[in-house]
Every structure is written in C-alpha cells, then in structure tokens.
C-alpha cells in the first residue's frame, strides 16, 4: 500500500499572510476617519469605540447594548453582523479589527506567552449574553456592568484620549470608573503574556463572528487528501487551536498562519469543495 505523502510545510507564511499587519494598519486608517466624516448613523463591523475622537462608524457592540437598554430591536446592527459574518466570519477579527491589531502589535514583544485551552473562548458568550444583552435590558445603561462601562477598547480609544484632551484644554477631566481602570490594566498587561487576551476570552463581537466560521462564504478547509494529522499546524496556531480539526472553531480569527501547511486551504462558497474537515486520526 502506498504511504500517504507528507504535506509540504512552507518555511514561512505566504506574502499575503505576512502582510497581515499592513492590511490591519490600512483598515485602521479607514476606521480612524481621516476625512472626518463621522458616519455615526452607520453601524460598523469592528470593535472600535464611537466615543473615540477618531471613529468613522458606530461600534456594533455599543449599538446592540444601547438598543437593548432602550428596549428597541437593533435591525441595522443585527443585519450588518449577519451580512459581514456570513461573508467572511472571523476574518474580520484577524484582518480588520483595530483592537485586535493593537493586541497583535503588543504580542510582538518577546515575552513568553501563556496558552489557555480553547474552551475558555466560550466565556465570550457569557459576556455577550450578560454584559451586552441582559444587563442593559434589565438594568439600563447606567449599570456599572453595562459593556461600554467596562470595555477596554472604549477606554483606550475613547475615554483616555478624551481625558487627555480635556486635561490639555485646561478643563476638568472626568476619570473612568475604578472597575474600568482595573479592566484596562488587566487587559493591557495580559496582552504581553497572552496572544489576543480580549479576543480569546471576552470579546462579544468575536463571539458573534466566530459562530459564522462554520457558515461564512469565505472559509478555511483542511484537505483530507493532503492532511496526515502530523500536528504541525497546531504549533503554528496562535489561538491554541488544532486547525486540522477545528478550522470552524468560533475562536479562530482566520490569521491564516496554519496555511503554511499546504493541506489547509482558503476556499469560498463558490469553490466546488465540501466544508467537511477530516476525521481525527486513530
């Protein structure tokens, strides 16, 4: 019987994947609203606080939470997330999100990284159900656990710049709550010792897009004819997944590091390819 050929592992990721930080930077430039358009009637699809002095669109998580507090159905936010998630799923997290970009940059600091089991990613759904939907709905936006009141992206992109601006202008800067400071300090410190701590443990938007990894029009697939279950892709995955089995995992941010293995391919709904992943080897 002929032995199955070993898949080829490229010595480094493709030029496209290596350019991910530049693509994230290009998206950041868009989100920072260089033309000062302030299109805050439009719900965005990335985690970028609309309190930021430089924000093009409204933050979808902020819109969901505030609409929940107002007891209004957020048709636009839900529609936006369904459309974007249905098209690209977790690619938003890995390639377009400015807060993910910040965490990727901090992760470049050469400090040993903690790797947590992938099931910890399900905590994000508790954040989504609790802080984005339930707390606002039952207690309103004034509750200290309302997502915007503890959001580190809102703090770093909105509250801190606004505090600095007010202080520089001679005004009395209103400080964030102690809880929010604690969350910010925790997340910033965690960024050095864990790859994307906010995304992998807490991000409610990543939780939503992660669900679409199973259904999105653009997806990753492990070619069963090429995969020999060697486990090389596991060592490449910064999110501590086993890509050959978990390419549709909600935690996958589609960074495409695993595509160094030629058994893992990017496919679209138009490809004549089944989504099914290979069964684990015995």
């Amino acid at each position: 019987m002929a032995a199955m050929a070993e898949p080829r592992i490229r010595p480094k990721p493709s030029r496209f994947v290596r350019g991910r930080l530049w693509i994230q930077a290009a998206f950041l430039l868009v989100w920072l609203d260089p033309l000062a358009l302030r299109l805050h009637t439009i719900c965005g699809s990335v985690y970028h606080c609309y309190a930021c002095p430089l924000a093009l669109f409204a933050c979808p998580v902020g819109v969901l939470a505030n609409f929940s507090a107002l007891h209004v159905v957020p048709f636009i936010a839900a529609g936006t997330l369904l459309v974007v998630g249905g098209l690209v799923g977790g690619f938003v997290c890995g390639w377009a999100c400015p807060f993910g970009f910040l965490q990727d940059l901090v992760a470049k600091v050469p400090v040993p990284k903690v790797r947590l089991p992938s099931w910890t990613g399900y905590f994000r759904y508790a954040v989504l159900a609790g802080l984005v939907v339930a707390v606002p709905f039952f207690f309103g936006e004034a509750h200290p656990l309302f997502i915007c009141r503890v959001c580190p992206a809102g703090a770093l992109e909105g509250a801190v710049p606004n505090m600095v601006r007010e202080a520089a202008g001679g005004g009395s800067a209103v400080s964030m709550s102690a809880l929010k400071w604690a969350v910010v300090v925790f997340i910033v410190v965690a960024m050095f010792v864990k790859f994307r701590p906010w995304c992998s443990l807490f991000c409610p938007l990543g939780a939503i897009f992660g669900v679409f990894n199973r259904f999105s029009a653009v997806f990753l697939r492990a070619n069963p004819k090429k995969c020999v279950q060697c486990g090389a892709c596991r060592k490449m995955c910064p999110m501590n997944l086993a890509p050959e089995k978990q390419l549709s995992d909600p935690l996958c941010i589609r960074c495409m590091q695993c595509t160094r293995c030629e058994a893992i391919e990017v496919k679209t709904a138009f490809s004549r390819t089944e989504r099914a992943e290979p069964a684990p080897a015995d």
Partner: protein
Amino acid sequence: MGAALLTYGVARHSQTVLLKQAEPSAAEAEKTLQESEPALIREITVGGLRRNPAGELERTYGEGETPSLCPT
C-alpha cells in the same frame, strides 16, 4: 436574512422619541419626534437617548443643547 434586516432597519424602522423640554408644563403637550434607526444609532453614540421610567424613549438633551452623557 441579514440584508433584509439591514434594509428594514434603514428604510422602515423608526421610534417615537420624547423631546426634552426646558420647563415642561402640564398644559403643554409633550413634543415627540419620529426618529429613524440610523438617527437612533447616531443619538446613542453621543449618549443622547435614554429610557424614562414610563418606558418611553427620551432625549437627554434639550433644543440648542449638546448631549453630555457619554456611555464610556
């Protein structure tokens, strides 16, 4: 389905919002405004809306004022 929700939200969905009055009097009827969903999104980005104890949507700022309640 997402496109349908998005289209409905942009084109059809609106809510009645109470306008804040400087000196509300019992004789004067409450002023309201029908705001589209995109307008509601813009309002919440500046902390311009809240739900009053009666369960109605209410602006947090009056005419000629700027909203001061930022959720962050």
